[in-house]
Every structure is written in structure tokens, then in C-alpha cells.
């Protein structure tokens, strides 16, 4: 047991951060918000389980990432579902730099995108990512290495294309 949980404080501290991370993974802000809101609904329903873990935000992130994963695998079905949570509260304007970055991320395979985002945006070490995703640390390192190279190439290509 890791002590009483201040859910409101966790919500205020983590919501925006998790939405940005999920956005970087899935490239869709509404889908990202849905995933994070679903994670908090799960957290509310499984409060004891959440209280028992050391890193509440990591637990929420795992739930949100898994939700996105099932969305990728079955997007055609999932996107027809009604939203279960309030959804995006207001249209968020995303600047061109951010769009370019997220498009480049979308050029990675899903597994590579996850590790890049967790490492470079959530500031997790490879051991922490391995624990969160339930995969060997060596796999994290190899995915990270491949994804970084691919991402750099994708952004270079885009710059060249824009200059042309």
C-alpha cells in the first residue's frame, strides 16, 4: 500500500501531460483525450488497485496506451462507437511544427512510436519503459534505436520536401 490517493491532484497534475503523450502516440487529439479520460474512469473504478502502485501516472499511462493499442488494431470498429466520456472540451489549435512532428511520429511503427514517446516525452529510462510495456529492456533499446533513426530520416525528408 502506498498511502491515500489525492485523485483531484493527480488529475490536475497528469491529465494534460498524458494527453500530449497519447497525442504523440496516436496523432489524434480527440482520441488521445478519450484514452486519458478512459484511464481516469478506470482509475476511479479501481481506486484500490491504483493506490497500491507506486507510480500512479505510470499506471494511468499503461491503461491509456493499451486503449490506444486496441483502437489501432480495430480502428474501423472502434471509431464507430459513441464516445463514453466527455471528449475534447474545446478545439485545440495545433501549430504546424507540432503537426509535422506528429506526422513524422506516425511514420514509425506503433511499437517504435511508443518507446520514443515514453523515452523522449515522458522522460522514462529504458528500464522503466520495459516495466511499463512488459517487454525486455533489450527490446526497448533496439526499438528505440531503430525508431530514432527512422524518425530523423522522416523529418529530414519532410524538410527537403518543404524546401523543394
Amino acid at each position, binding site marked *: 500500500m502506498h498511502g491515500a490517493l489525492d485523485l*483531484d491532484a493527480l*488529475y490536475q497534475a497528469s*491529465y*494534460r*501531460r498524458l*494527453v*500530449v503523450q497519447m*497525442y*504523440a502516440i496516436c496523432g489524434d*487529439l480527440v482520441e488521445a*483525450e478519450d484514452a486519458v*479520460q478512459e484511464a*481516469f*474512469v*478506470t482509475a*476511479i473504478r479501481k481506486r484500490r*488497485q491504483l493506490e497500491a502502485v507506486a507510480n500512479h501516472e505510470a*499506471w494511468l499511462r*499503461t*491503461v491509456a496506451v*493499451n*486503449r490506444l493499442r*486496441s*483502437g489501432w*488494431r*480495430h*480502428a*474501423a*470498429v*472502434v*471509431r*464507430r*462507437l*459513441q*464516445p*463514453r*466520456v*466527455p471528449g475534447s*472540451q474545446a478545439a*485545440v489549435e*495545433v501549430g504546424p511544427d*507540432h503537426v509535422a*512532428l*506528429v506526422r513524422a511520429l506516425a511514420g514509425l*511503427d506503433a*511499437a517504435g512510436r511508443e518507446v*520514443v*514517446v515514453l523515452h523522449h*516525452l515522458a522522460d522514462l529510462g529504458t528500464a522503466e519503459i520495459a516495466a511499463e510495456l*512488459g*517487454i*525486455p529492456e533489450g*527490446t526497448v533499446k*533496439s526499438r528505440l534505436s*531503430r525508431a*530514432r*533513426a527512422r*524518425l*530523423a530520416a522522416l*523529418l529530414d525528408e519532410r524538410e527537403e520536401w518543404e524546401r523543394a
Partner: protein
Amino acid sequence: MPDLTSLRSLGDRVQPPPLGALQDVARRRSRLSATLAAVGAVAVAVVATVVFLLVPREDGAVPEPVHPPTPSPTRTATDESGGPATHASDTSMTLREVVAKPNADLVLSGISLDDPDFRVAIWSAPCSWCPNDDEPRGRPRFWAMAITTDGFESTMYRRIPYDPYRDPGFTEVVSPGPGLLLLVDAGNPNSPGWLLRDDGTLTHLAAAVETRSGDARRWHWCGGYDADPAAPTSPVGWCLVDAETDTSYQAEAPWLVDELVHGRPAVSPAEADEPWGLENVTDLVPYWYDGGVLHTRDFGPADATGTVSGMPRGEMAVWSLDPASLVLTVRSSGEGGQPWQVRRIALPSAPSRLSVHRTRSGALMALDSGGELALYAWPPRQIWRADADADSFDVVYVESERTDVAGYDATAFTELGGRIWSGGLWSDDDGRTWHAVRDWR
């Protein structure tokens, strides 16, 4: 490495909804779960389905999963009335009403390759006459299965055996043999799928791990992720459906996805003695096993890659696409990976999501299924064909209207008895002309 941290500033512009709204959603879900839990473990599965599909969803409640964790084969009754043609309740919809609703969405469809009059379709529709008092979600929505053995001259209606607000649902419908349709449930790691027989019975398959031999059509893809972090994730790999025992047998390594090395084996145990496929890297790297030993060949960077289905036993082929020149390069090889033959074929346009198949005559078929675009902009589907000696693909089918929903993971092309199928499209002349099945209700 590009700086991703600039994305963090986006967070300042995100406005979280009040936490109370999420607490309210959680409360309503828990309330229904508690009610169901009191009924008893076996009854829960049945009641949850009935409550979810027949009780109005104005409270936003979502039941617990209807799949038992370790299912034993059970058959449902053959008759599940669709109810009257006019709506029987001001707060709900019958199955027949869901299917008949003009603005219903076709969620998934499948057809028996042995008897094309045997079909299944899953429909979803909003209840326009139900109270609209669940503000964030709008009017409640309902789902129903329509089944026919006479091309929808007559229809059997069934409830869908999953919770559409929680489970991702079926990923594809496979035609594994006469009188059978397999509803693949790859999103649910505890459910290998459901077998629909032409008498309307729906059977939840049991799962077993054992590499078996069998007809290529009985093999499908199963396993996957779960949204619950506490649940174990099943492996993803080839599975064989056995209608005699109502069991799905998952093959063992190396017929599974190997997270560390490579992706999905391109062939099932019925199609090859040992698997081959593409490594899950950005280069074009085919892999194959020979005498249990893994071999690879790196053909260098490639923007888009894939395997060619329909290859004769003992041969393998992979493709890569140069998006600038729109040239598809197909590399093929016999057993042992030597030598590799190269063929280059021009594409008519840039595809969104490409699948390539070799017909029995040696012609190449390509399906541009639209990828993500298919979710928003119908109709995206095109089929291209190239004779065995052609240097470019011809466009042989452009979808003019949406005719079916084959499923996100569906096999692009399947051949049976001289006929080629792609979802609800078929060709009887080696892929030169295509026809569409249009009746799904």
C-alpha cells in the same frame, strides 16, 4: 534526434473536463456492474448481453465483459426474434429495428465462400426515438447481427456477443469451411472467436495451444492486447479452428509474432513447412526458416513493404514500394532464399494501404484498401491487376459506393474453386472483372 519536448506546450491549451464528469461515468458503470454481479457468475454473461442491448443506454452504464475468461463451448438458441417491425419500446430498439434502420452503420460483414448466400452482417444504429438525456453521448446506440442462408431473402437476428462500448469487437469474418463462418475476436485475448453455423447457432470457441495440420482456410489470426493492464496478454499468431471440438488451436513458435525479431509469419502451417515473412524493421528484410534455422536477407531501406499472399508452396515473395516513382518491386525466391528474382511493376496511383496477392495463374493482384482513409472517406477501395509478364498494373475495380465492411485485419484476397474473393467482392476470370455482394440485410 528531433526534440519532442516542444509538444509539451500543447498541454497548456488542453482543457480537462471536470473530474466530476468522469466520476459520474465511473459511478454509473459501477452501479450496473454491481447489479449484475449479484446475479451470479454464469448468469452475468447472459444478463449483461441482454441488459446492454435491450435496456436503454440513457444512464451511460457499461456492463462488464460478456466473455467468460475460460469459455467452454455453448450454443445459443437458434431463434432470437428480431421483434416487431415497428418499434416496440420508446426507450429501446429490437434487433430487427437496428438492422432495418435506414441510417444504420454496417460494422462488419462476412460471406461463406462455399455458399455465398450464407452471410453475416453486424449493424449498429442510433435510437432516434429514445430519450436524448445522456448529453455527452447523445442518443443511445444499439447493435445487432443479421444472418442469412438465402442471400437475405430471410434473416435470423442475433445479439452481438461482446460489449461494443468496451470491447473492440470482431476483427474479421473467416470462411473456414462449408456451413461455417468464424467471427475472429482478436481484440480479446481470452476469446479466440465465435463459430457461426448455417443453422444460426453461435458457439464460443475454447482455446488450446497446439500446432496442428489442416486446411489452409481453417487458419486465422488470433491473440492480441487487452485494455486491462492487469490481464495477461496472449501471444499473437496463427490459429486453427476445429469445428468438431469447437476449439481454436493456437500454433506454437515460430508461427507466432516474435516481438524481438520479426512480424507476422506470412504463411500458416498449412501453406508451408516452415514460416517466412518480413522482419519488423524499416529495411526490407525477409526472413525464413530452413531446417529450423532462421535466415534473413537485407535488401536495404524501403518506405513501404509487405509479403505476397498466394505464393506456391516452397516459394516466398516480398514487395517494397518507391512512393516517388510509384514502382512496386517484388522479390521472390524458392526454398533456401537463393536466388532472389526481381520484378518491377508500375502502380496506377499512390496507395494508402496496399495488399499484394499472386493468383494461381501467376497474375498479381493488388488491393488498395484505403487504410485509415477508409474510416472517413468512402469509397476508397481499388483493385489492380498485372499479368505474369506485365510491367504495370491495370485498374480493374474502383469502388463506386460502399458495399461491405470486410474488417480491419481481413485477408485481402482468398481463392476457392476458381473464384477470387476480396471481402464481399468476387471475380471469376482471374481477377479481370469484379462484382460486389450488395445485400447485407
